[in-house]
């Protein structure tokens, strides 16, 4: 009886303010899509981090006949100097932190270079003498590259010590900026959505002011009066969240899986499972926002 009454009230409210309800649906749809995209970007960053950071190495570049940087003086590192580095890496102070390391001579470096830039004209300009000999170090914990850096750089015959993660950090900074932008846009849109819900509920209450006045007069409980309005907000926001979920799934399914994965086959990307994982959060955000906004709005209306 009472449930039927409440649901009828919700239905009348939604149909009386149809255009406002549509705008709530659209605004929550767009803002939650941004929220979902931001979550997916973070998931993507985490996946790439775990994938690449495990493979990231520290490179110890030795001097060549042409290098002037570091401890070099246009003179290639001598065998003694290389031996000293090797001994340092095997020493008791560094060995516990090093998983493994290997030495790459000029011919190997040249072969790798040719392979890596096979399609580029730069291959013809490079000869083995130009490329440095390199110690490639895999750390037990990739975070601790600072140790290698401190103990090796500055030694004679070492041109530079480079942590490959520093290249990755730039990519991640870019992705992070993208996800933060999405979050900022989403936050602004969510504020707009909340205000829109509050206004719509006010309008809805105003269009039923006679009924509300009588309900209050005859002693209908506050919860009974408020529930239809809060439900109205919830229904509209849930529709928006459903559309946003669909959009997030579509982005992963058709753009990420359908296009990016084929364009960049070596990179891992977020999957449909990641898209599904965002959906409960999108619904929770949308509905939570609707509850708070419509409850505050109707309570203020009734108090006024």
């Amino acid at each position, binding site marked *: 009886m009472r449930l039927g009454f409440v649901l009828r009230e919700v239905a009348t409210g939604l149909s009386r303010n149809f255009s406002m309800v549509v705008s709530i649906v659209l605004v929550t749809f767009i803002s939650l899509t941004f929220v979902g995209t931001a979550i997916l970007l973070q998931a993507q960053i985490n996946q790439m981090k775990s994938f690449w950071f495990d493979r990231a190495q520290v490179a110890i570049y030795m001097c060549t006949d042409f290098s002037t940087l570091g401890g070099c003086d246009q003179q290639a590192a001598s065998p003694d100097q290389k031996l000293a580095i090797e001994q340092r890496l095997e020493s008791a102070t560094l060995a516990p932190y090093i998983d493994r390391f290997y030495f790459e001579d000029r011919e190997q470096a040249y072969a790798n270079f040719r392979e890596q830039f096979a399609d580029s004209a730069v291959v013809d300009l490079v000869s083995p003498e130009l490329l440095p000999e390199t110690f490639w170090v895999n750390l037990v914990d990739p975070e601790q590259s600072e140790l290698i850096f401190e103990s090796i750089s500055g030694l004679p015959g070492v041109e530079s010590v480079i942590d490959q993660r520093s290249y990755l950090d730039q990519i991640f900074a870019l992705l992070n900026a993208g996800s933060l932008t999405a979050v900022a846009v989403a936050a602004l849109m969510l504020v707009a959505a909340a205000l829109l819900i509050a206004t719509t509920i006010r309008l809805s209450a105003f269009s039923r002011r006679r009924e509300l006045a*009588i309900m209050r007069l005859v002693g209908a409980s506050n919860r009974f009066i408020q529930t239809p309005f809060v439900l109205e907000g919830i229904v509209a926001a849930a529709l928006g969240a459903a559309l946003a979920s669909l959009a997030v799934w579509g982005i992963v399914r058709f753009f990420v899986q359908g296009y990016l994965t084929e364009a960049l086959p070596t990179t891992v990307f977020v999957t449909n499972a990641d898209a599904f994982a965002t959906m409960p959060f999108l619904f929770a955000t949308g509905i939570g926002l609707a509850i708070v906004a419509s409850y505050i709005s109707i309570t203020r209306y009734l108090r006024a």
Partner: protein
Amino acid sequence: MILFEDVSKMYRGAPKPALSNVSVDIGAGEFVFLVGASGSGKSSFLRLILKEERPSAGNVHVLGQDLRRIPSRKVPQFRRSLGVVFQDFRLLPQKTVFDNVAFSLRVIGKSAGFIHDAVPDILQTVGLAAKAKNYPHELSGGEQQRVAIARAAVNKPAIMLADEPTGNLDPATSAGIMNVLSRINASGTTVIMATHDSGIVNQMQRRVIEIAGGRIVRDEHQGGYETSAIPLGEMDTAPIPVITEEMALADPTPIRPAPSDPDDIAAPFPWELRA
């Protein structure tokens, strides 16, 4: 039943209090007229009983409860024992007579079975059983007010507040409305009616509380609309009573001497009910 203890009500921004130091006691089953000029504080008096306003000073007790001690979430429960009727009826235009009355029961969670029994019953009481399926715009003003009274009375309230219920109605129709209110009063409901209708007050001869400038200036059992004695000190400011033709017809002695002589007190006029 209703007890005002030294109650004052001051509205923000208003230079004078709407009510000042009002003390009054209304017992169960009484029928009380609240009279006074517009703006004298009658509506504030009613709103305080409804707990729509809180007093600036003093206590209001209704049905044995100190209204200050009722938390706001319990106010709806409290209002279920009060019925209210207005000058402008306040019916829902898109609902039938039956549904208008049923609405007030539905929203306080009464069962369909109870509504099915109670609504025809109260419509019978107000004399509208035949118009249950009509819409408000199909009814006369008097009939609409009867619907409003039925809505206020259907839950058998202990107290009925009526704010100028006959303000929009002609004398004959007003008599019918008073008939209905008297019947509800006779069934045990305390009725408090704010009114400007001198004819009704004079003929009913019930308790009259007159408010002027926020103070109770008269509280008379079996009183008339006009004050029977001008209180001392108010001589200069009291308006000179103007006797209109209508009033003269309604009551041949609008300004009566103090009712010291028992013969002077008109017998309670048996309006309608006893017949």
